[in-house]
């Protein structure tokens, strides 16, 4: 009976999680958000634009729309959070000690914040 259960869990790797961690829940929330935000980003920047990419003037006028600006900044924050949590989940498979796990989380937080700051700076530079 126990062996059968173990075999079932092996076949479904997602079942191995004892309980949903806050990292996993954030991964899900940001993932669902990304389905909409990335879809919007992709359609607005590549599908409805002639030639598949906006030229410089077009990018500037696009980002000067306040609604678009808010959505693009939100997209940047959500995609970076999702990416950092994903990297963390993969690295965590190495069975890290609590101390290294904490360091990893801190390092990924710093990388994530720097990524968002860079994105904000770039957006500001383009608009102005």
């Amino acid at each position, binding site marked *: 009976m126990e062996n059968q259960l173990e075999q079932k869990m092996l076949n479904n790797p997602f079942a191995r999680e004892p309980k949903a961690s806050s990292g996993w829940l954030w991964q899900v929330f940001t993932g669902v958000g990304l389905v909409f935000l990335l879809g919007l980003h992709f359609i607005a920047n590549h599908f409805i634009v002639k030639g598949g990419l906006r030229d*410089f003037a077009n990018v500037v006028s696009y980002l000067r729309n306040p609604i678009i600006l808010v959505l693009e900044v939100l997209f940047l924050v959500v995609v970076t959070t999702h990416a950092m949590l994903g990297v963390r989940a993969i690295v965590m498979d190495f069975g890290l000690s609590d101390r290294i796990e904490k360091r990893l989380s801190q390092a990924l937080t710093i990388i994530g914040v720097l990524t968002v700051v860079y994105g904000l700076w770039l957006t500001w530079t383009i608009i102005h």
Partner: protein
Amino acid sequence: MATLEQPLEKSKYRRAGRWFDVRRRKAGMWAYALNRITGIGLVVYLYLHLGVLSLLSRGPTSWDSFVSLARSPSFLTLDVILLAGFLIHGLNGLRVALTGFNIGVKQQKVLFSALILVTIVALTVAELKILGG
């Protein structure tokens, strides 16, 4: 001391990379591995994309010359690969979220087959649109 630690280290790496080996594994493990492979690819792409966007800070000449290059067929083919990554990771991610909340656990294989089918159809349509101009 080193002899005791070495096998431990080896087993740690073997365990960490176990998800990558999908031989003789069922659909659930294939989905798990696909999600991670596409995820790693998309993280790499995110930073490449942010790097390329820095051209915008250099003004219209730099950006517009990149746009002309990016409209070439070889670049557009890369777009199709990127879209495949988005579709697989996004749809599979939704499936993972559902099963994680105990929704559709018994139907996960059907969901996986459905997402692959939707990916193929969406990719075909997108490919025609992207490469067709």
